[in-house]
């Protein structure tokens, strides 16, 4: 009987295995891979697929945590990017191309500027704006996905100990930002209690901004003090010279990484800037981090280990990025469809597979724990 009960309780437990949130670095690698893929193409079909894949994964796998709530903002940002691009093409577009879709009066600016405004709007220039905008928008959404899916605090824990000054600032910002929204709400509610100052917008804005900023500042200081009092960034005595050397190494490493990453993503940059800079920047940075991290001793309560699911997730994004890079060299035609003359964009099987690779997290990542369900209501009750 006892064994039966034990069996039953165990089986009930196995029905709902504890959900393991994926390693935040895995999410970032996945998203960066997709972003890299997007940077290689202007094909609207492929970009649309990339967008759909990203949004689908976020919708299915994000938790209800505060940082996940920002994803719609990235979508809005993306929409604005596309709309602005289209608007600029209408205003500054000139009349390249032959298929005119809209006749607008042409405004000649003084000869010396060599610019004209408005004029005939062609399908070619509109589409080129749309493609460009879509590419940027997709990259933006990919970054937003990483932000929504990866727990930023766990990500910080994955950072080396040496960067603790940076991470203090980030932790403070992470904690204060959601509270900022709350205090904006609170102050707006409070403001309704006092007759509105009649002396114009500035005073009205002041009455919102000043209490909110004071609140944010107070909270940041309290949090920083609490972190300090609880031993954050403890280290032995470190010589001043070591500190300067590590700072120099870190900064130059970061510069190298930035140049390398830029050249790597921009297909038109000279190749010798890409990989060599990336690697040397990485090496210099690692040395700096190693040096400065020697003083700091920490341990991890639940260390974030890499499991098969994490590796698979990261790989799926990276494969998508890599396949696009290879295709860009071998068969660039499909990645950037011709505008002059206009052509229907097409998809090759390889690129479709590459994009669909990005869906793998739907399998590898479990549903995120829903610890935050219903909590927002409770929060309003305990303001």
């Amino acid at each position, binding site marked *: 009987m006892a064994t039966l009960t034990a069996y039953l309780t165990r089986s009930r437990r196995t029905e709902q295995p504890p959900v393991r949130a994926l390693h935040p670095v895995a999410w970032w690698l996945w998203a960066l891979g997709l972003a890299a893929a997007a940077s290689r193409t202007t094909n609207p079909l492929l970009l649309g697929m990339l967008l759909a894949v990203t949004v689908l994964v976020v919708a299915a796998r994000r938790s209800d945590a505060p940082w996940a709530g920002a994803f719609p903002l990235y979508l809005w940002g993306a929409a604005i990017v596309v709309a602005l691009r289209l608007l600029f093409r209408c205003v500054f577009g000139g009349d390249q191309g032959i298929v005119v879709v809209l006749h607008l009066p042409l405004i000649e600016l003084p000869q010396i500027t060599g610019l004209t405004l408005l004029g005939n709007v062609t399908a070619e220039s509109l589409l080129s704006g749309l493609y460009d905008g879509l590419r940027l928008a997709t990259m933006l959404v990919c970054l937003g996905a990483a932000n929504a899916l990866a727990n930023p605090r766990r990500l910080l824990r994955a950072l080396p100990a040496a960067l603790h000054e940076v991470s203090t600032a980030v932790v403070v910002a992470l904690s204060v930002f959601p509270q900022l929204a709350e205090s904006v709400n609170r102050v707006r509610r409070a403001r309704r*209690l006092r007759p509105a100052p009649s002396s114009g917008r500035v005073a009205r804005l002041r009455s919102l901004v000043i209490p909110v900023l004071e609140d944010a500042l107070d909270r940041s200081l309290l949090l920083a003090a609490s972190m300090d009092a609880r031993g954050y960034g403890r280290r032995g005595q470190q010589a001043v010279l070591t500190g300067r050397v590590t700072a120099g190494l870190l900064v130059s490493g970061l510069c190298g990484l930035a140049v390398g990453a830029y050249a790597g993503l921009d297909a038109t940059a000279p190749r010798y800037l890409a990989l060599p800079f990336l690697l040397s920047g990485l090496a210099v940075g690692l040395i700096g981090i190693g040096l400065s991290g020697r003083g700091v001793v920490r341990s991890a309560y639940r260390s974030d280990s890499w499991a098969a699911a994490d590796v698979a997730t990261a790989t799926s994004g990276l494969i998508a990025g890599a396949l696009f890079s290879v295709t860009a060299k071998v068969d660039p035609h499909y990645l950037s469809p011709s505008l002059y003359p206009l052509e229907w964009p097409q998809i090759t099987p390889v690129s479709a597979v590459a994009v669909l690779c990005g869906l793998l997290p739907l399998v590898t990542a479990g549903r995120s724990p829903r610890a935050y369900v219903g909590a927002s209501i409770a929060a309003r009750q305990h303001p």
Partner: protein
Amino acid sequence: MITFDRFSFWYAGRQVPTLEAVDLRIGDGEFALVTGRTGSGKSTLLRAVNGLVPHFTGGHVEGRVVSVGRDTRDFPPREFADRVGLVGQDPLAGFVTDTVEEELAYGMEQLAVSPQVMRRRVEEVLDLLGMAPLRSRPLRYLSGGEQQRVAIGAVLTSTPKVLVLDEPTSALDPAAAEDTLSAVLRLVHDVGVTVLAAEHRLERVLEYADRLIVVDERRVCDGHPSELMRTAPLAPPVVQLGRLAGWKPLPMSVRDARRRASTLRADLAAVPLPTRSEVGDARDGLVARRVTVTYGKTVAVRAVDVDLRPGEVVALMGRNGSGKSSLLEALQGALRRSHGSVTVAGSDPARIDRSQAAGLVALVPQQASDLLFADTVEAECRLSDDASRMPSGTTRAVLDELLADESVPNASHPRDLSDGQRLALVLGIQLVCRPRVLLLDEPTRGLDYDAKGRLSSRLSALARSGLAVMVATHDVEFAAYASSRVLVLAGGELITNTATSAALTASPVFAPQVAKVLAPVPLLTVDDVAQAMVSSAERIGLS
């Protein structure tokens, strides 16, 4: 364990020290209680124990502080993490992680404790503080009492020898405060932690303290509570009652006092009850019927009827989250109600515009500073005159009338004012339109006994001038002093609506100390007792 040696401290740019020549020795395992007026330097004293003062705040230091064998001059606060655990006033502001378990582990991670030991200590602390069911809950959505216990637990896991608590119960309702205090006392008795705690509401902790540290005008003196309490400027009601009745030694707890009070009870039982002043008709004040407020699917306030009559001060009580703030905002009209009606002098404050509504109902929110945004008191008053279209100088005049004996200089920044002065300033601004009803949300937070007394007499003066006043408060003693009627909310429903004397003597949780000592005599405050003693003496003289 902690030694202050001729310690003086000046904040940067100040001519006058905040603390001067402090000498203190706190032994191992003591429970030391720090008390003093608002702004007297209690927090500075506490933060000096682990070196946050001066390492984090900046400033000038003379003398020294040695905590658990380390001089704060030689080590930054983070090197004290395994020796001194500091819990601030607002636990939520100090949380670094997202969930209870992570927060408990955070300090140990910084100290590089091995994972096995961390697991064990987290479990121990969860059990010690009775938080095991909370372990994976997000911190932001815990109740105030739970947050406070997590904050204490989070420093305990680093096994400090000293625990420093800055007003651990100031934001909590009576029941949550009891929870937190009993957790702290268990630590003192079972674990042997040395505790240094600041607290305004002495009535809650005085009886447990081994040592009392009084911070007054930059100076610090310490000694046994029963000796220091004879002359201390701030004393809980039970001590004031003892002083009044001339008991020696002074009682520190309700239990002490009750054992001495048998004759006093007998004397007072024959005295007729003090009558409270007359009140007007609710139709001149505020009439609310079946007020309901919902957030999404949650009902915050459910079909509450409230009458506020001119000339009375009503206390609104109830647990954290029972809907007090929502009810006040709904009565003021700033928060949309989903059902019900509110009528003030024939009109509904929610249906008329903001500046007209200000002439009917004024609300002082929980965080009064949210209403202030100018650089100086003077500018703030000018803005207020301007917004309410009153002749210039009106707000200042209202403020001066409110302040009576205190002063709020025109040139000072609203942030530099004490909590009591800031509250007065906001009151002045909100009263400039001469509303008929005044609502206050938790005004006593951070106020010492004197400031609370002043607020209480201000409110009764306003009521005498014809205002209807309602105060949401957790503070039973304040409600006993200030109010004539008590409303109690639970889960958004009104469960009690009776005279203060009946409401506050009925339940042990809500009874003020004097009522507990004198039960069944229904007297609530030391002033009531003083008055009753006078009339009892007169009766004896007559007969």
